[in-house]
């Protein structure tokens, strides 16, 4: 039985995960062509050994060279990383106090608070991003409110800027930050803080010397959980960002659907993955460490 249980999912993942990935790699080495499918060479076994040799001979790294020569791609990668880093920090700044408040809340509130954090996660991601389109628009609710308060005399332009993208990422990824931070803060014994204060620590230094180190595993996990998907984000920059918001997920999408340049889109994908491998490996090592500590 264990054989069958291994073989079925194994085969499934080989065919629908590994093979597609190899196809992307292969197409990233091909050339753009005006044909169906829009790339060349295509593998044709009927031509025998010679055809296979020609096929491999025609593959090259031209698309990758092209990516390094065109500013657009470099800028898009860098600005994706920049946007992801800034929004991860912002998410931490917003999420940490919430997680801290939850961990300090009376025991009987905690399940309800947990539920309130998870609930938005079950509602559609797209809808949560969409909700901000109406709020941030020039004649939107936020501007109307600020004008009414008299804080501003002219509507602020927020939608279609990077600020809107940051707000969108912080809002949609907030549960991913709150939950791991809460999990590590919840396990902390509050008497540790009392002990620190008894021993002469001020509140602030007790927070820095006791709470922060204990929260570290949760903070690191939360940061990775926000950062990794944020780099490749597509929906948020295309709904809230403007034409000057460069993010690689959007570039890949447009390369594929608008320019129909599949080889370049594939090369963009492979480089994105290479960039993400570092944080992914670090994240998994961190998780493994955390598991070992638990045991």
């Amino acid at each position, binding site marked *: 039985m264990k054989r069958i*249980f291994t073989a079925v999912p194994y085969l499934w993942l080989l065919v629908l995960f590994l093979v597609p990935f190899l196809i992307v790699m292969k197409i990233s080495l091909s050339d753009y062509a005006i044909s169906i*499918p829009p790339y060349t060479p295509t593998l044709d076994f009927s031509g025998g050994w010679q055809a296979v040799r020609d096929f491999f001979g025609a593959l090259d790294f031209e698309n990758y060279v092209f990516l390094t020569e065109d500013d657009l791609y470099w800028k898009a990668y860098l600005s994706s990383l920049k946007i992801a880093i800034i929004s991860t920090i912002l998410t931490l700044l917003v999420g940490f106090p919430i997680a801290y408040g939850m961990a300090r809340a009376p025991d009987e509130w905690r399940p309800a608070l947990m539920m309130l954090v998870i609930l938005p996660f079950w509602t559609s991601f797209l809808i949560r991003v969409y909700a901000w389109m109406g709020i941030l*628009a020039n004649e939107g609710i936020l501007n109307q409110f600020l004008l009414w308060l008299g804080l501003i005399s002219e509507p602020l332009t927020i939608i279609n800027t990077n600020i809107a993208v940051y707000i969108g990422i912080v809002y949609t990824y907030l549960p991913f930050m709150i939950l791991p931070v809460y999990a590590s803060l919840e396990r902390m014994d509050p008497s540790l803080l009392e002990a620190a204060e008894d021993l002469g620590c001020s509140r602030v230094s007790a927070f820095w010397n006791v709470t922060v180190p204990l929260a570290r595993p949760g903070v690191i996990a939360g940061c990775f959980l926000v950062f990794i998907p944020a780099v490749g984000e597509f929906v948020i920059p*295309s709904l809230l960002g403007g034409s000057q918001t460069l993010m690689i997920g959007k570039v890949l999408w447009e390369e*594929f659907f608008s320019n129909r340049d599949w080889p370049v889109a594939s090369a963009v994908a492979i480089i994105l993955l290479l960039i993400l491998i570092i944080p*992914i490996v670090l994240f998994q090592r961190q998780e493994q460490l955390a598991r070992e500590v638990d045991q």
Partner: protein
Amino acid sequence: MRRMSAFNVVSLTLGFAFLYIPMVILVVYSFNASKLVTVWAGFSTKWYGELIRNEAFLDAAWVTVKVGVLSSTFATVLGTMAAYVMVRRGSFRGRTLFSGMIYAPLVMPEVITGLSLLLLFIAIGLDRGVLTIVLAHTTFSMCYVSVVVSSRLVSFDRSLEEAALDLGCTPFQGFRLVTLPIIAPAVLAGWLLAFTLSLDDLVIASFTAGPSATTLPIKIFSSVRLGVSPEINALSTIIIGLVVSGVIVASLVSKHRIAARSAEERAAID
């Protein structure tokens, strides 16, 4: 009872206000009579009427539910099998690749998963439609199911399974009669997670859907791209309403079951 400091109360209040006010605004404006979403012109339910008459949305909703049910069911079967293998089977040839392939889709950017599956479907000449979306969704959500199920498998007592085998069960009977009932809550949770992921997915579905099958997120995205529309607010309100009531029902059921179980335990002790 510990009293919460003012700082904690303020941060919780602001935090939850930030999480919920956008959705409340969305719901309120779905009842706005004006076509302009930002100007309040009185209460009206006309956008719900328009929505029900909009066949494109209804078709897309039907496709989405079909894809969701099929893909989450397949994903649950495959993910449970994979979790069982990862937790219960020791080392075997290709284990590293297997576990790599199970965890990789969890961190893979959606645009890459979508692109790679589309290129596969084109390479093998499979027409894009409901089938291709189901295959794509099954592939990424089975990994989430296997994570959920394996956390449950790790925590339960293996000797129960061994006892079943000692008492003459075949491995399959042991799995069906002992393991499956114990991990059932996690399997159900995995199914629900897979179902939500499928309903929610825009990027992978956009790559793998063809002209014959459009899902609701694709439909919403293409109309939202042009700007805010009250019909989409109405649709969002319906979706939020369904999710909230689903979650409330689920939590009440589980609370009731926990209460019933502890009552039973008390009765057994008395």
